[in-house]
């Protein structure tokens, strides 16, 4: 046990004394959150929109003027019929359409409420959400102004429609994706590299000729990265809560328990790679190509899996990040409990066990 603790301590020295490792470990999650959180939710300027005005009365004019006056929008045509609007959407010429029904002003002033239809091209969900929010707030402004002078409030209801991607999948809920990505990279790549480094420096040769069992060498390599990865989980969650205002709906405990399971899965993968490779470069390449790409592609974080061809959907099932992504989304955003994610948990557990067993079996107690 004393050997084990000394070994783990030594491992921490390695990490803490190498600036590059530290930067990857703690800089990467920070950078990713910032990039995904701020750089990608871009400000909308001069979005091309059309307005189909069936009312052509003072009220609709007034709202159209306000929309035109803001620099978020660039009104293409004032009047357009539905069919031409459809084509313009398909060709990508416009991003948003606003429809005023006939008798807009009459309905508003006599029945005290009137609808406006807002249709957005949601193939880019972030963009669509931003646009519809702007439109809603402009209408809201107009309404407030109107109501200052009357006793009974007028209500305008914007009816939002998201074309092509009504549920806004893959939208700003990127935190689970970043978490899967960062943990995958840190746990797989760092463990793989750190074990292969002992091969390269020749220290593994000395460690093999010692009473310390090789299995323990590997386990004591995994412990520091488990701890450091948990620190990463904590920092990502804290950033998402306090910087991005994305609260954790479900249980924190469950979230950390599932994260631990995912990290362990990644560690076994990293160990497996380290056993099979001889140089740090190869280990790094395999971790990057073999882990990062599939994680990006098949976790459902960047591209919805449902839209993929069936063979790719099947492949996606062996990517641990996919299951973890579902788990984190369920806990953080939907706020569900363990009952809803036991299946995914079991799959992760299975993958971890699989790699642990084959790592143990393929570990060499001698040099090749």
């Amino acid at each position, binding site marked *: 046990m004393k050997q084990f603790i000394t070994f783990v301590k*030594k491992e921490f*020295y390695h990490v803490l004394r190498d600036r590059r490792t530290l930067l990857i470990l703690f800089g990467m999650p920070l950078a990713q959150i910032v990039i995904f959180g701020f750089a990608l939710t871009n400000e909308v300027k001069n979005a091309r929109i059309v307005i189909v005005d069936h009312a052509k009365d003072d009220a609709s004019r007034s709202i159209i003027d306000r929309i035109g006056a803001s620099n978020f929008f660039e009104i293409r045509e004032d009047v357009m019929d539905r069919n031409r609007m459809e084509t313009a959407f398909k060709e990508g010429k416009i991003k948003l359409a606003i429809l005023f029904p006939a008798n807009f002003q009459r309905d508003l002033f006599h029945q005290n409420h009137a609808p406006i239809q807002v249709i957005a091209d949601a193939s880019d969900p972030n963009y669509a959400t931003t646009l519809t929010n702007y439109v809603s707030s402009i209408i809201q402004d107009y309404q407030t102004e109107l109501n200052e002078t009357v006793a009974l409030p007028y209500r305008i209801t914007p009816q939002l429609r998201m074309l092509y991607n009504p549920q806004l999948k893959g939208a700003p809920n990127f935190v689970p994706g970043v978490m899967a990505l960062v943990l995958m990279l840190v746990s797989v790549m760092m463990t793989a590299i750190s074990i292969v480094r002992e091969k390269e420096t020749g220290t593994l040769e*000395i460690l093999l*000729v010692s009473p310390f069992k090789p299995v323990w060498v590997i386990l004591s390599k995994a412990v520091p990265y488990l701890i450091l990865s948990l620190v990463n989980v904590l920092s990502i969650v804290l950033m998402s809560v306090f910087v991005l205002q994305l609260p954790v709906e479900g249980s924190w405990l469950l979230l950390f328990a599932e994260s631990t399971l995912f990290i362990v899965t990644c560690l076994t993968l990293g160990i497996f790679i380290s056993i099979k490779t001889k140089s740090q470069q190869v280990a790094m390449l395999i971790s990057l190509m073999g882990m990062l790409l599939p994680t990006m592609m098949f976790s459902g974080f960047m591209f919805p899996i449902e839209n993929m061809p069936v063979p790719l959907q099947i492949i996606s099932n062996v990517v641990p990040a996919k299951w973890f992504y579902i788990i984190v989304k369920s806990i953080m955003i939907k706020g569900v409990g363990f009952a809803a994610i036991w299946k995914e948990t079991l799959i992760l557990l299975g993958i971890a066990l699989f790699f642990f067993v084959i790592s143990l079996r393929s570990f060499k107690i001698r040099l090749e």
Partner: protein
Amino acid sequence: MVNVNNISKTYNKGAVKAVNDVSFSVEKGELFGLIGPDGAGKSSIFRILTTLLLPDSGGATVAGYDVVKDYRQIRSSVGYMPGRFSLYPDLSIEENLHFFATVFNTTVAENYHLIEDIYVQIEPFKKRRAGKLSGGMKQKLALCCALIHKPTVLFLDEPTTGVDPVSRKEFWEMLKRLKQQGITIVVSTPYMDEATRCDRIALIQGGSILSINPPQQIVTAYPSPLYAVKATDMPRVIHVLATHQPPFNSYLFGEYIHVDMPGMGDQEAVQVLTDVLAKAGLDGIEVNPVTPTIEDCFIKLLTT
């Protein structure tokens, strides 16, 4: 302490023969040297004896344990210093030493007497990272780490390669003292001049052992008198000696050329060589009888 019986080892599925039917044995408390050029198979033998490699055929025991079956026991009782510097460059001297002491289930204090002589030399730098040490200091630290668990047999693979002459000399002094403490040492080196510091040496080339004897005995067994020849135009001397009929057995040795003169007395041999060189029009001729060194013996063994 070490018994090696007919071990062979090939790499790349038999394409490269690294060790070819090698046998030797090392007594308790002996300082045994494996002497040979790079690629002679020294490291492979070390790795087989430290249980890191399996021999293709043959067997060996270390401290009474079989290198294949009882690898666990061997691993906890021997000390091994690989050919390449193999400590953690980002840990300090102190940290490396403590780490290896703990891995071997012991403490620095427990066996400090073993390493004291060596450690005091590097102790002033104990906070320095191992990667920033000079070649000689690295080797001293590596030796400390290999010694810290009081091994019964110490395997040192080319411990003096890449180390300056002064540190090399110091290193061999240390080995001598360790030997006096009863530790069996198997050491390899490509430097022939270090061979004389061993109790017995095995000359090894191309995976085969050419001769195993005490160094003195190898030298005295040199079959013929040897002469060192020098003249102003050395390349021509080589040419003249090689093209002479019958050709002389000669080779470059430092700034001299060593020539074998079998079956001749000193005076006669010097006369013959001087005549041959003078006839070829060379000047500044110098011919002196010399005592053969291990290197001469090695070359002799290779050419016959």
